[in-house]
């Protein structure tokens, strides 16, 4: 038999599909064909494999080679199949052992000189291989670190094609080549931001801690220079570290975008797209290869939309569905890519186009229609999903110049958030939810977690007077529970409900 097979991985979104790479040698004049819906980059593997084999001192058989990528109906992209195609064809020609390659996954691009080059998405690919029960994966040496994050699979880092062939029993000299290395991982600058640097915004800092503890979405509204951006950028710092599984999800997405993944980063990511971002930039796009958008990169972290009212309406409303479901599906002809997108949304906006509306001592020059239109840029349904709406005022001069600093440091806040989250998780044990922000309203309004009439009174009154919709009522309940968790109480009292009402409705309540 002149057939040999090995395995590779095709990615749609962050889901990896194992692809069987079969090579067949037929006694015909020389030809090299790849079938099984390859894209342009993958079709060009013919040339790369040809030259890489020659320069590695390995002879490709001078007969007709047909490489089939099975399942043949799944579209496949990119240069990550080069290595698997090369070893399969070499095995079909007999210079590599068939047995050895048939239970190994090969991932990597080949250079013309026979070196193995890095490809994006190695982490999710190796993950898929491990889940499918493979014991061994060969990856480019530049992607070794991220591949090793996956437990339960033996990872071999390849420098050159000759080296891989030698592992599989080829009689070839392995030359000393300079390996293709990954670019350096740049150190994160966000970690140094401390909450204690925020001066005189006790209310807002408090709201930030509540948002972190309950996983609530938040809208910060205030004049320019009030510190909205400063506050939002300090949110990831007070979020508890990601669990190993969550960090792997985040690292998988980072790997897909082609960023080097050196180690498992347990800090929550912060994604802050510019307000000119399109809907495709937010949710992810591309015609054949779907690249993850901002909301996917913000998975398990914070999506911060500064100048939220300046975003296009279409882009903002694209957030509604992932906010509910925690994932996003991008449909293209032939396939659907599914990405996780469970993020915490922080919106910041000015109260009006000039930014001075409602600011003491400043004059707003906007006509009232413009103010109303500006506030209406955030659609009702999107606003409905935001639990906390807080006004951030400018800091008074006396506070800003005094040496006094706000009492809350990032370390303190994180500790409080951690305790509150533990409390919530303990109460929600046995349910699919982990955070107060995820709990549906019916569960809070009925059953054993219904809070007393006495504590509920201000809330019921607001509902009766029509200030709150029933959905808004549920949001306030959730906030109240988070505050109770932060305060170490078993159930929210009148004070917590009152403050929750204030955070939801700003000055109205």
């Amino acid at each position, binding site marked *: 038999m002149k057939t040999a097979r090995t395995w590779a991985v095709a990615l749609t979104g962050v889901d990896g599909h194992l692809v069987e790479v079969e090579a067949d040698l037929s*006694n*015909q*004049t*020389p030809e090299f064909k790849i079938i099984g819906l390859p894209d342009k980059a993958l079709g060009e593997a013919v040339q790369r494999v040809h030259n890489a084999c020659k320069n590695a001192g390995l002879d490709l058989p*001078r*007969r007709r080679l047909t490489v089939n990528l099975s399942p043949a109906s799944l579209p496949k992209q990119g240069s990550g199949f080069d290595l698997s195609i090369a070893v399969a064809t070499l095995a079909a020609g007999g210079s590599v052992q068939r047995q050895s390659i048939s239970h190994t996954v090969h991932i990597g691009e080949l250079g013309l000189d026979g070196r193995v080059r890095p490809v994006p998405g190695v982490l999710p690919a190796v993950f898929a291989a491990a889940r499918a029960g493979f014991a061994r994966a060969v990856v480019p040496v530049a992607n070794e670190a991220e591949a090793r994050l996956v437990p339960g699979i033996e990872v071999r880092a390849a420098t050159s094609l000759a080296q891989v062939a030698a592992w599989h029993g080829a009689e070839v000299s392995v030359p000393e080549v300079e390996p293709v290395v990954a670019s350096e991982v740049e150190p994160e600058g966000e970690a140094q931001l401390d909450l204690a640097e925020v001066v005189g915004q006790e209310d807002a800092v408090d709201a930030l801690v509540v948002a972190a503890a309950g996983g609530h979405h938040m809208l910060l509204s205030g004049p320019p220079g009030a510190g909205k951006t400063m506050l939002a950028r300090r949110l990831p710092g007070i979020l508890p570290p990601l669990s190993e599984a969550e960090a792997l999800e985040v690292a998988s997405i980072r790997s897909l975008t082609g960023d080097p993944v050196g180690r498992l980063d347990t800090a929550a990511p912060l994604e802050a797209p510019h307000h000119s971002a399109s809907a495709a930039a937010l949710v992810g796009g591309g015609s054949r290869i779907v690249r993850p958008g901002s909301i996917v990169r913000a998975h398990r972290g914070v999506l911060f939309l500064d100048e939220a009212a300046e975003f296009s309406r279409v882009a903002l409303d694209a957030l509604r569905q992932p906010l509910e479901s925690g994932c996003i599906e991008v449909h293209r002809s032939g396939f659907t890519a599914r990405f996780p997108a469970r993020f915490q949304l922080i919106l910041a906006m000015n109260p009006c186009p000039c930014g001075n509306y409602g600011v003491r001592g400043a004059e707003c020059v906007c006509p009232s229609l413009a103010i109303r239109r500006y506030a209406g840029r955030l659609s009702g349904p999107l606003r409905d999903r935001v639990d906390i709406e807080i006004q951030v005022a400018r800091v008074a001069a006396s506070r800003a110049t005094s040496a006094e600093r706000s009492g809350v440091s990032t370390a303190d806040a994180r500790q409080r958030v951690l305790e509150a989250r533990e409390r919530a998780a303990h109460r929600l044990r046995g349910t699919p939810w982990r955070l107060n922000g995820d709990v549906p309203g019916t569960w809070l309004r009925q059953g054993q977690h219904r809070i007393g009439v006495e504590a509920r009174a201000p809330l019921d009154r607001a509902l009766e007077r029509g200030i709150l919709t029933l959905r808004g009522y549920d949001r306030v309940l959730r906030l109240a529970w988070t505050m109770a968790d932060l305060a170490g109480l078993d159930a929210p009292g009148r004070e917590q409900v009152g403050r929750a009402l204030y955070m939801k409705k700003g000055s109205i309540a």
Partner: protein
Amino acid sequence: MAAKDVLGRAGEDRAARYLIGCGYEILDRNWRCPQGEIDIVAAIDGLLCVVEVKTRRSAAFGHPFEAVDARKRRRLWQLAHAWCDAHPDQAGGREVRLEAIGIIGAEPDAGALEHLRDLS
């Protein structure tokens, strides 16, 4: 005769001897018509084989079989049918197939010979 033609001629002789050794009956050699030339026409087991012989001094400029591309094969089919038309008695409704023989070596008599049967 140019050096390359000498080499080609020697290669064809070697191929013919090889085919006879394999049990082929040589029907025609270097048959020409307006479309081109057939190197060898041979018969075995009721099959009519049109054989293209390629000889190279070395594989440095590509394997001999790499010269037998899709265009060349299409032309060989046309030539095969032309030969059948010209020799109705010998063709006799026999099935036709294409074959290729590649020889690498400065001395065709001693070089490596490869034989492909039934090209498509």
